[in-house]
């Protein structure tokens, strides 16, 4: 907690509130997870050993066990799962952007009285429970589901498409579910974009598609970045969508954590997976911020 000493106490207090919130609901639980990740599993309640153990009367010893992390790094299964999660998160984010950008752009450029209804159309499905929406996709994608019946009824395919329980179903579910998280921040940046900049570009000889490439796209990068993070980060740890729509051969960290926690009762290993996932997610952003700052310093 870094409070600036010169500030009036009221302002210190205001800054302290989010810090306190983060510490209480993020840092503290994470420390618990970290603690469990350094212990050993045991058949007891709870199913892990305490770090501090009494060996004799009055003598205590601290036992820290790094073997969970060692296993994660040595066993290719976990790195493969990391790669699987990265792949699903990366491809889903890309598709969310490819679909979400034109949507956000169209809404931001539509007449004022159309914008709110269009945004509502994006948000409204999300007033339904997340699970109901995923189950709806099962109904659409399954072998004798809506999509297959429709395509076969139209004579476009002879035998049903195997989509359910494949990676494609996972991508469909993830992209559908996370699309608003891309559309909304993109809309917010695009609506703030000064349209006279496009006129200025046109005035200087720039054709419409180049105006988009040279002006709109670079200036909407904050929205692209925010949207990507809002999709990429949760999808990295996503469990329910791959579990319901994906096949058993979908190897992702979320499912692996489930197996370690529930099937193996190996809470320490599940915790070290969670800790490792967090580091894997935070590290790129810390590095990005670091390079941004250096680039900024270099330019001034």
């Amino acid at each position: 907690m870094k409070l600036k000493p010169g500030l009036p106490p009221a302002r210190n207090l205001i800054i302290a509130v989010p810090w306190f919130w983060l510490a209480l609901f993020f840092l503290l639980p994470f420390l618990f997870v970290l603690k469990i990740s350094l212990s050993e599993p045991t058949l007891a309640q709870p199913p892990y050993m305490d770090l501090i153990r009494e060996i004799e009367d009055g003598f205590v010893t601290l036992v820290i066990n790094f073997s969970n992390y060692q296993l994660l790094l040595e066993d290719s299964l976990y790195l493969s799962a990391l790669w699987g999660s990265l792949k699903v998160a990366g491809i889903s984010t890309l598709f969310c952007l490819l679909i979400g950008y034109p949507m956000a752009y169209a809404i931001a450029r539509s007449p004022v009285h159309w914008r709110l209804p269009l945004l509502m159309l994006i948000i409204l499905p999300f007033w339904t429970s997340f699970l109901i929406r995923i189950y709806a996709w099962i109904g659409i994608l399954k072998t004798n589901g809506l999509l297959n019946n429709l395509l076969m009824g139209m004579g476009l395919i002879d035998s049903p498409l195997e989509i359910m329980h494949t990676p494609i179903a996972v991508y469909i579910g993830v992209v559908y579910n996370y699309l608003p998280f891309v559309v909304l921040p993109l809309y917010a940046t695009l609506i703030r974009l000064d349209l006279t900049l496009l006129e200025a570009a046109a005035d200087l000889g720039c054709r419409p598609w180049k105006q988009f490439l040279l002006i709109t796209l670079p200036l909407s990068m904050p929205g692209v970045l925010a949207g990507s993070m809002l999709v990429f980060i949760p999808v990295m740890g996503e469990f329910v969508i791959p579990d319901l729509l994906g096949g058993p051969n979908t190897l992702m960290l979320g499912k692996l954590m489930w197996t370690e926690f529930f099937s193996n009762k190996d809470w320490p290993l599940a915790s070290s997976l969670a800790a490792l996932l967090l580091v894997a997610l935070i590290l790129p952003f810390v590095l990005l911020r670091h390079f941004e700052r250096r680039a900024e310093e270099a330019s001034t």
Partner: protein
Amino acid sequence: MNRVRQFKPEEPWQAPEEEPIVRIENVTKRFGAFYAVDDISLHIHQGEFFSLLGSSGCGKTTLLRMLAGFETPTSGQIFIDGQDVTNIPPYERPVNMMFQSYALFPHMNVADNIAFGLKQEGMAKSERQDRVAELLSLVQIEQLAKRKPHQLSGGQRQRVALARSLAKHPKILLLDEPLGALDKKLREQTQFELVNIQERLGITFVVVTHDQEEAMTMSSRIALMHEGRIEQVDPPRRLYEFPSTRYAASFIGSVNLFDGYVVQQDDDQVLVQCDEADSLLQVRHSQPLVPGMAVTLALRPEKVRVLKDFDEEAPNQLRGQIKEIAYLGDVSIYHVQLPGGKWVQFTQPNVQALAEQPLTWDEEVTLGWSANSCGVLTE
């Protein structure tokens, strides 16, 4: 209005055989039922510093945007350098625009902003760099080339915007309220720089402004616009001294208006009976007028003098009582009420500091002016 610019070259608008660089023919722009621009025809000539002047909503910006290509006329045609550009998109027009907000690209530094248009036309890199350096020195911001727009002051941004719009050697430079965002002191200084650059480059400038002083100072000619139409197109001095409509007379500076009818005309001397002033007024006017015709005379307050004696027989003499005095520093404005109730205002320079005011409240004064000082408005 003491800094009206002297336009050096021969007045090109007096040479009808020369093709104007901008020819606007019966252009109308309608937004729904609203006529933003209503049947305007206008010629602008090579090398002019042409101002579109008017209050907000008069259509001046819409007209400028039609020149740039951001709006398409509902009807009518626009020619630039003899070419019909009415339906040509902005990125293919030989004009450039300096935006009121400057519209600098926030993600590019100053040099890249200026080079943007050059890059679009595919100019080689080394040539581009030379051109950018040239422009940076033209607007005197060589040291700012690597800065981003958000690191610049308002005045610096204005210079970048100007340099960027000049980069492609446009045939016409359109400027939308070019000084509007600057504070008063910087504005006055920048006015002259803008004029100097325009004269040096010989590019035709078309400026939109709502500031009459700015228009008067810089322009070769001013088109005064009102409700989508042009009230009057004239050089600043003519616009001020001989406004042709009531609106033109009252928009620029202050004016006393006398409604009356023509009594008689001898050569260029016209006698007008003005009932509201209960007086006979004489004015010089070369156009023939029919006796009995209703006219309005426009008299600038600074043309009025205080006379010692009142000669009831002489024209252009009024008596009244000073009711209000406004001290403005260089001059004072006096509001005089005539016996019939009509108000007339006149100004007097404050020649001596702290001197006893020669005129004071409730004083009876005689006002007079020469026949040359008055303008005749027929509309």
